[in-house]
Structures are given as C-alpha cells and as structure tokens.
C-alpha cells in the first residue's frame, strides 16, 4: 500500500529492458532489521542472463523531507545493500534515478559473499519524508543494466 501511495500512476522515466524478464516473488530473504520486511523477487539465468535477487521496501520516516536523497551516502545507508553484505565496496559514484514523482539515486557495489564475488545494486528513491529502498544481488560477472527491472517492478508490483 505504501508503495502504491508513493508511486505515481504515470509511467516511469526509464525504459524497460528489451525482452521482458520473469521475476518470481519469493519470501523476504534477509534477517529482520529495523524496518518491516518488503517484497522480494528472483530472476532465473534463463530469463535475466544471470541469477538475481531483487528487493523492494518502503521506509517511512526520513529526516530529509525537503531535500530528499541528496547523495550516495543515502544509497549506502538506506538501500538495503548492507543486508546482502556488510563489507560492500562502491564501484563508482551513483547516478540519478527517477520513477515518476520518486527521485533518488542508484549505485553499484561489489562484495565477497561466502567466497564468491558479487555485484550489488542499490536504489533509494524518496518523496516527502518517505523512502523506497531497493537492492539487487547478482554474480560478479553479470553486466546487465538492471534499471528497467527496478522501474518495472516498482511500477507493476502485484
């Protein structure tokens, strides 16, 4: 409901990737933390080219009600990539990300999980005092642009 409240009915600003990937809803894969669990999805290599787990959840109550997602620090701290690995390392400065009235940033990271190098993507979007956080984890070799998947799942949740 909160995503429905936050997300606009209008179309998103990003294009969907060519060839619709199939995302299957799964149970929230991470331990309970300070925020209620959100929605999680899995995409098989046959559909996305690499195995991927993507999460979305709303975090009500952000202090920067007027300034919104100001910098990459917000992505590092709020996007839930720290649920995937506490030792993530950013690969580059983040980029602006907009989905309708929701504005924020996307950033990529890498981390070693159980001996395997992984690629992480974090997204934080805000409107007013509320935030939508999203994360994605795939193998390190993956180079897919996941922007459209984030956008589509934000827009078309069940």
């Amino acid at each position, binding site marked *: 409901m909160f995503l429905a409240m936050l997300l606009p009915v209008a179309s998103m600003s990003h294009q969907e990737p060519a060839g619709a990937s199939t995302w299957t809803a799964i149970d929230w894969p991470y331990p309970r933390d300070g925020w209620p669990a959100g929605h999680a999805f899995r995409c098989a290599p046959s559909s996305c080219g690499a195995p991927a787990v993507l999460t979305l959840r709303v975090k*009500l109550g952000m*202090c920067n009600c*007027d300034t919104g997602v100001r910098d990459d620090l917000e992505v590092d701290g709020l996007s839930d990539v720290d649920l995937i690995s506490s030792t993530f390392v950013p690969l580059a400065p983040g980029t602006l990300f907009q989905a309708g009235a929701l504005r924020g940033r996307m950033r990529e990271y890498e981390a070693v999980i159980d001996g395997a190098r992984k690629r992480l993507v974090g997204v934080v979007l805000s409107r007013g005092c509320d935030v939508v956080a999203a994360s994605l984890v795939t193998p390190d070799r993956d180079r897919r642009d996941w922007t459209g998947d984030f956008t589509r799942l934000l827009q078309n949740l069940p």
Partner: protein
Amino acid sequence: MSLPCAKWTSVLSIAACFLLSNAVHAKEQAIGDPPEAKNMELVGWNDLQQRSAYQPTVFHQGNRWIAYIGHHGGTEAVPRPVNPLTGQAEFNGTSIIDVTDPAKPVYLHHIPGQEGLGESGAAQMTRVCSGAQLPKGDKNTIYLLRTFGNIAHEIWNVTDPAAPKLVSRIEGQLKDTHKSWWECDTGIAYLVSGAPGWRTRRMTQVYDLSDPAHPVKIRDFGLPGQQPGSSGSVPTELHGPISAGPDSNRVYFGYGTNKGGIIQIVDRKKLLEGPSEPTPENLKAPEISQLALSPLIGAHTVLPLLKMPIPEFKNDKDGQTRDMVMIVDESLVNECAEARQMVWFADITVEARPMVVSNFTVDEASGDFCQRGGRFGSHSSNEATFAIFNKKVVFVTFFNAGVRAIDIRDPFRPKEIGYFIPAITQATTPRCVKINGADRCKTAIQSNNVEIDDRGYVYVVDRANTGVHILKLSDETLKSIGQ
C-alpha cells in the same frame, strides 16, 4: 480496506493499512478543548511567533531567567513568519523569552536562522554558558551556542538578551547539524555536524570553545565505518552527546532516532587527548563500550544518571548505588506507522556490560494516541540537572501525548506521576498521512522538547507551532518527591 491495501500482503502493508484506514472515533483535539493534565499545572504560555520549536534552554542570568528556544524551519504555507517586534519576515531561528515571571513570559528577540523548511533550515539547537564560568570567556558576558540551519554553529553574546550580537561562527561545508553539548566549566563543545567526506549525515566535531571568540577544533569523531574513505555498512548516525564532565571523565553518545539505536560510552580524556586522525583505530580508542539497542528503536537522548542510590537495593551487600543512563527514542512517523519509541533505563555500573533494566511508555489506550494525529511516542527529555528534580523526576515529551513527569527514584521501576497535554490553537499546524495517495490530516499537539529551570518550572515546546507552555508540578506531587 481500499484496493491498494488489498494488493499488498506484507506485514508492513497490513499493519499500515489498518492503522491508516481506521483513523476514526479517536479523541482528536479540537480548538477550544482544555488541556489534559494530571498533577501538572499551566503557569504561562507564549506563542513563539507561531514558529515550530525544538530545543529550549533556560538560563538564570543575573536576576532574570531567560529562555532560548531553537526552531525548526517554517512551513510551506508560512516559510518566513513575520516577527511582530520588527515587522519583518524572518526565517525561523532562535526565540529569546524573558520568563522571570513565568506567568507572563515576555518575547524579547528573535535571531533569524537559515532559510529552509522543516529540518532543512532555521536554528534548532541552543546551549548557554556564562563567561564567568568559561575558562577564557569575558567574565561579564553570557554566550549562546546555537546551530545555524544545517551549515554552521554560531556563538552569540546574549548578555543583553534583547540585543544579541554575533561573536563567532564555525563553518566548513557542513551538511547537517543537530543536538550539540557544551561544557560550561571547560568550554569543550561536542558539536553535532555533518563534516565533508564523512559517511554519515551527523557526527561529532569536538571544539574548544573556552574562548568563544576563537573556537579551536580538537578532532572529528564518529563510529568506525563513518569516517572518510571507509566502505561497507554505515553505522547509525549520531543524534547527540551528553558529557558528564571532566570529573566523571565520560561522554555518552546516542546514535539513531527511531532505528538502530546505539549507546556509546566514551572516555572523555582519551577523546580529547588521543590522536585526532579519524582512523578506525583512533575512533575506537576512546570507546569504553557500546550498547546496541533493538534495531526497532533509536537513541535521541542518552541522559546519564550517575551514582543513583536504589531504595530497593539498600540492604544489599553490593550494588546499592548504580550508574544509570536514560535512553529516549524519537518517534519519527505520524499515526504510529513505526515501532513504539519510548524510554529505556540501562544499568551501566559495569561499563563494559551495559544492560537495559526497565522502560517507560505512555499507555496508548489512555488517549487513543495512535488515532489522534501526528506523532505519538517519546522524543526528548530535560537535560538540565538542577537539584529540585535531579535523579528524582525526569520530564519526557511524547508528541501528541504531551509531556510526562516520571518518578525515577527507583530507575528499575519508573512510574508516571503527572502529565500535561497542551491545548491546540488556531496556530497549531496539522499533520498528514497518505491515504490512497491523498493527504488526510489531523491537528494535534506535538510536544517536541522539554527543559527545566532551577526553580522547578518545566518548559515544553511544540513542534506544530503552538508555542511554549510553562508548567509546574502540583504542590502535592512536589511534596511527594521531597520538595
């Protein structure tokens, strides 16, 4: 339940839909309703020019008592309220009120703050020290330390509180500021800032302000992982420190508002005299211990209550006296769409093993507070330690449940002995939640911060523009605590 609610099945959605779609039949406040009170009485009131208020500090200067009250930024409707004293529109800053006669507070002056709405501008924080106490201050001068929005800290000469003069300003491309602490006997200040490069919105900048005209930086401080150049998970951001001073040699830091609270006990001498380079080792060196709270709660205020005799333990062979800290979480979200934020007491007698031993919250059902509108839950306590209430009673704001007087003489069993929920006025601004994408708003008092003076008056200020209410405990209640 609306269709969007039905589409969502997570715990979050179910709980939130329930909360937000059943907001009827509550005891909502209405203009004209009297205040609600038990064992607390209204003495005086000032509307603070209808500005959203944060930190009050009341200082006994000469034969006067002066309240310095910090403000949040304005609203979209009124971003720059008019100061009736000057006739000028001024961004919210610091209100200075003569409360010598608490029944008739007199608004003396408004120092404008930074442009910005809500948390973005204004001048939220106030601390006051006398130059007679500061090691290198002018002996005849009273100094106000305040934030200037999110970008600077300022020191003002408020010897004549009706005509403040800027003394100095600490800048440095700060991205945030908040609830700082100033030791008047040493001049050491723990400024809550957001320094460039630090991976957190708020951390500590330690300054020597013993000569307020010439601030001297000592070091930057934070939790390892917040310093520039670090990576991985970012520890919870600072909310505010309270120093117990050089004799106790401890500083208590509270991290977090309504999530991921951390209490950090720090050796003051090591903090001030240790190597200042913000390496993980240097940041860890002054730390004595941490108490990680539940991720569901934060730590807005960490108030040390040291060497407290515990009546229940008086016949025990050991542990009759305990060092305690009171932890106050901050509610951040309207209409209970978050975990309950409340008050916790931790026994830190064995500093390396701090342990939460008790708690306090307002009974939600006693006022249907989740349905009244605005925030419900704790926010802030008094921080002054005047003898009349020290280690006996604390006052804690609970937003729409007003201010609560809590008997802490046995901190293992805190109990409420009074409360006051101010009435709303035409100036009280509504608080809104989204229902199916549209705002649904209610108007309720939002008691934000509270402070006491050495006479026993209690000053509670409103986040929703209703001003400052000056209160006292009833005579019977004062007697019950030995006053």
